[in-house]
């Protein structure tokens, strides 16, 4: 299937290259890599590692957005699953911890999916409910403090390395492949795109649109829960107050940078993840640049606008070049 490969990712790849180049300018050692304690070490690895939570979120978010939905609760779900994982980590095995945390994410997704597909609420308010209440639930679990743990298994999830890569990065990669395999290996991808493109027509064609919508919110919840576990494992503690705070916006941004329309329909998993990497490359660059933090948001705004303009259908820039290249090839 072509779907895992970017069919139209030229603009995104170029954007990433440009930002990487700018990062190299503001920080000469940006591309340095060395091996230390069996893991790679360098700014590029930081980009991958720090980009992992948003990349995971965007894997779920892109499917939700493909059905014309949106999930504002992912940040709160991260907080919940992180809190659960941290509270159980020192008394239970990793399997139990993961099952509980991901199970919580699944329930959250079910709730969102229920509100949207069965009760027919507008996705943005339906998930706003859990966005507000979910963080409360997470804080309830931790009672507002930072619950720390020492369980080496869980710590490994956040800080370990496989084949030189940080474990979170390997997990994100695994999730990308898994999601891709499930979505594109089955008919799910087509049916989701049909549902998002025209729910009424799809329903009449026999597509179980409600089930599709439920499924994508559930998956989004699971992805968010996984991101939450990783975020907690990373700092060896669950910070229910701040974990995942405002990350829903980054995830949505990543999906849109990845070329998926907020009006549903066509989606690309790999480009959504690329979108997350673009955001993180920019963030890491800002941190390395040494500019005062007052500038962070301004830089972010300018970069986001620039990346979007690159993709604008109306701008005879990259999109045009890409189209011409494709035509030349065809």
């Amino acid at each position: 299937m072509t779907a895992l490969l970017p069919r139209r990712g030229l603009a995104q790849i170029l954007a990433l290259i440009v930002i990487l180049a700018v990062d190299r300018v503001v920080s000469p050692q940006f591309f340095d890599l060395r091996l230390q304690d069996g893991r790679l070490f360098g700014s590029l690895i930081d980009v991958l590692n720090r980009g992992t939570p948003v990349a995971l979120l965007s894997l779920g978010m892109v499917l939700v957005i493909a059905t014309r939905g949106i999930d504002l609760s992912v940040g709160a779900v991260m907080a919940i699953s992180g809190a659960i994982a941290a509270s159980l980590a020192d008394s239970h095995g990793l399997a139990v911890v993961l099952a509980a945390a991901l199970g919580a994410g699944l329930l959250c997704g079910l709730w969102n999916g229920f509100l949207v597909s069965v009760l027919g609420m507008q996705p943005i308010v339906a998930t706003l409910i859990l966005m507000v209440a979910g963080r409360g639930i997470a804080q309830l679990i931790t009672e507002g403090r930072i619950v720390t743990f020492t369980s080496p298994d869980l710590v490994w999830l956040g800080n370990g390395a496989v084949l030189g890569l940080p474990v979170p990065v390997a997990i994100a990669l695994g999730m990308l492949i898994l999601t891709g395999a499930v979505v594109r290996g089955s008919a799910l991808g087509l049916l989701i795109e049909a549902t998002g493109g025209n729910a009424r027509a799809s329903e009449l064609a026999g597509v179980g649109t409600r089930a599709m919508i439920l499924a994508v919110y559930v998956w989004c919840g699971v992805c968010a829960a996984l991101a939450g576990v990783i975020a907690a494992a990373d700092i060896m503690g669950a910070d229910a107050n701040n974990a995942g705070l405002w990350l829903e916006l980054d995830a949505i941004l990543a999906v849109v940078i990845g070329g998926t329309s907020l009006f549903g329909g066509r989606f690309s998993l790999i480009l959504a993840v690329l979108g997350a990497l673009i955001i993180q490359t920019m963030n890491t660059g800002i941190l390395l640049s040494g500019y005062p933090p007052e500038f962070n948001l301004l830089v972010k705004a300018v970069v986001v606008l620039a990346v979007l303009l690159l993709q604008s259908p109306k701008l005879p820039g990259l999109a045009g070049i890409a189209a011409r290249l494709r035509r030349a090839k065809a």
Partner: protein
Amino acid sequence: MENSLDPVPSLLEVRGISKSFGAVRALQEVDFTLRAGEIHALLGENGAGKSTLIKVITGVFPRDAGIVRLGGAEVAPRSAKAALQAGIATVYQEVNLLPNLSVAQNLFLDRQPMRFGIVREAEMRRRAKTLLAGFGLDIDVAAPLGSYSVAVQHVTAIARAVDLSARVLILDEPTASLDRHEVEILFNIMRQLAGRGIGIVFVSHFLDQVYEISDRITVLRNGRLVGERETASLPRLELIRMMLGRELAETTSARAATREHQAREVCASFENYGKAGYVAPFDLELRHGEVVGLAGLLGSGRTETARLVFGAERADRGQARVEGASVRLHTPRDGVRHGFGYCPEERKTDGIVADLTVRENIVLALQAKRGLHRPLSRREQDEIARRYVKMLDIRPADPERPVGLLSGGNQQKVLLARWLATSPRLLVLDEPTRGIDVGAHAEIIRLIRDLCDDGLALLVISSELDEIVTYSDRVVVLRDRAHVDELTGEAIDVTNILAAIAADGAAAVAHEGRA
């Protein structure tokens, strides 16, 4: 075609218009001339470029080459608004006014009667009412347009354009969802406007209507101008040859005689089936190899019957059986599972998924039927798509093109392909030939027959009584959301159907189109 020697001054002159969408050359050096006071039919197969020409003229699409002159002066409207201001009013093919606005607002959008910067709501409604009355429509103009049937929406769109038209009125398939009576009213109005010197462009696939109303005809084929003729001096067969570039195979022979429809097995049956407030309970038997036509006026409940039969709407009484076994038909999925198919009448909102490709649209129902775990491989998909693109002559023959970019008629064919691909036992077609050109129309009717010969059961809704008569083995007549009559065999002809529809004497007056 050089018209400079024309005695009648031309009102709208189009010269050498070209327009490409990527690799698709939709128009190539097309000329078109509209005189003041004439009704000019613009004809051609599906995808010939009629709608594109119109949109280029009104500036909705930028043109690649060519000029447009209006009343001798060159114009180049950059938007629909500019075209309106220049005096060109248009009803586009996929009309669709704004269903969320009231009928009155739709009629007077952007030109509401104002006082002190405030819209004079009452005045606007009064004018709307008067305007629609001219079209034989007496409805509550304050209600949202979306609460009315497609036909009412269509009439509203036409009324708006007519009211707007200063010099040129362009109607792209205005009659596709109107019935005879409304078409009559429309034609009367068109004649009056033409009498006032307004030039009218009329697009239609109904050749009868073209001959009834138009003065001249321009034919396009594959984006090129084929010719311009006086209607009166152009024989029908010649016209068809111009449009298709070939002869049309004979299709309209009577059919009933060739078939015996007694000994056929029942495919699906419905007893006392209905839904309160939707359609009165009815009995209906659909047999393998048989075509059942549903006839009735707009709003008589044909679409509703179709939706109940397919499972798109849930019945609240009665019993449905498939091959003798009683079944539950609560959702479209149930229908699909039992081997039903349904082409809805509103293809844009209920039919196509515009962003997806032709291939994906064609395999959608089959995939939904097979379920998630048995995905069609890309090769199977390609093959299915290729087969049906060829069988139905979908143009352009590119399965990877987003369906939304196809012309209206070709979209309709994609929908048909979607259901044929599921090899259904029962196919419900709601206005299957709407917007389809003469050639394809003949193809589809032949296809319907072939399908029946292979044992498919068909339930077809059409406002074209001739069409219904051509292929139906039985005709069920509806009135006021109830099945009122059933005609079989020799009894099926247009006169009898009309009589059944009008059994209460007042034929075709009820235009309470409110859904």
